[in-house]
């Protein structure tokens, strides 16, 4: 599994298409994105990470970088999204962080 993450609109899906040499339709079959939203609702992040790891590519938007929100539920959601990223990165063969459309491999190598 390739775990690909980065800030909002940083070009993550475009990078994923390039890595897989595929179009949007194929990406939709082989990848899952916005997994930070799943972290918010699911009780067990380990199980969630296990399930997601079945995909070829898992894509997350990083949401833990701004000033800490006043709202407790938002604070928890950010923390959980970050934790899920750690769990996915552990399971991934390759981890790619995308910044300004540029993919940086921070674990393993691209297939």
């Amino acid at each position: 599994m390739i775990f690909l993450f980065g800030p909002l609109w940083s070009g993550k899906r475009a990078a994923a298409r390039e890595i897989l040499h595929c179009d949007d339709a194929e990406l939709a079959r082989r990848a899952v994105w916005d997994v930070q939203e799943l972290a918010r609702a699911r009780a067990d992040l380990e199980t969630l990470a296990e399930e997601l790891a079945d995909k070829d590519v898992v894509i997350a938007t990083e949401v833990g970088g701004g000033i800490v929100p006043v709202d407790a539920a938002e604070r928890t959601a950010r923390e959980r999204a970050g934790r899920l990223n750690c769990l996915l990165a552990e399971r991934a063969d390759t981890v790619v962080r995308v910044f300004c459309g540029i993919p940086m491999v921070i674990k393993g190598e691209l297939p």
Partner: protein
Amino acid sequence: MLTLVVGGAGSGKSAYAEHLIERSDAARRVYLATMEPFGFEARQRIEKHRAMRENKGFVTVERFTDLSGLTLPPDSAVLLEDMGNLCANELFSPHGAGENAAEAILRGVACLHAQCRELVIVSNEVFTGGTDYLGESEAYLSLLSYVNRKIAKTAERVCEVSGGIATDYKGEET
């Protein structure tokens, strides 16, 4: 050796910082906690970090302000967690240095650095959530970013942790 470890919420920065301390061959491991245990969430957070450190041989020292007044055991590896809380304490707490927060913090860091074998400072990436801040928030962000930059200058290594993986901006894991 001074290492600055920066990361956002849930980035895995604490676990990575602990890993660095565990790798050190210093005689003692000191966890320097800066978070004041006010409120349920703070206590929960403290408990979570305590559980993470269990059986890793850390001595916990709580210090919320004035690091320069602290004496550490000789030959120790120190994990300071975290700079975001220390900045808030120095800036806003009645015991804090207030407008002299930056000098107080940097003096404290220099003092720790001189005393211990290994110093790992965990700091917070809180600067990418917009620019529209006012008053106290702006003063806080400005302080933390200034302190981060100053420490990064002195540090042998500066890395950002995300997804539990460290990316180096200066130096590297030795």
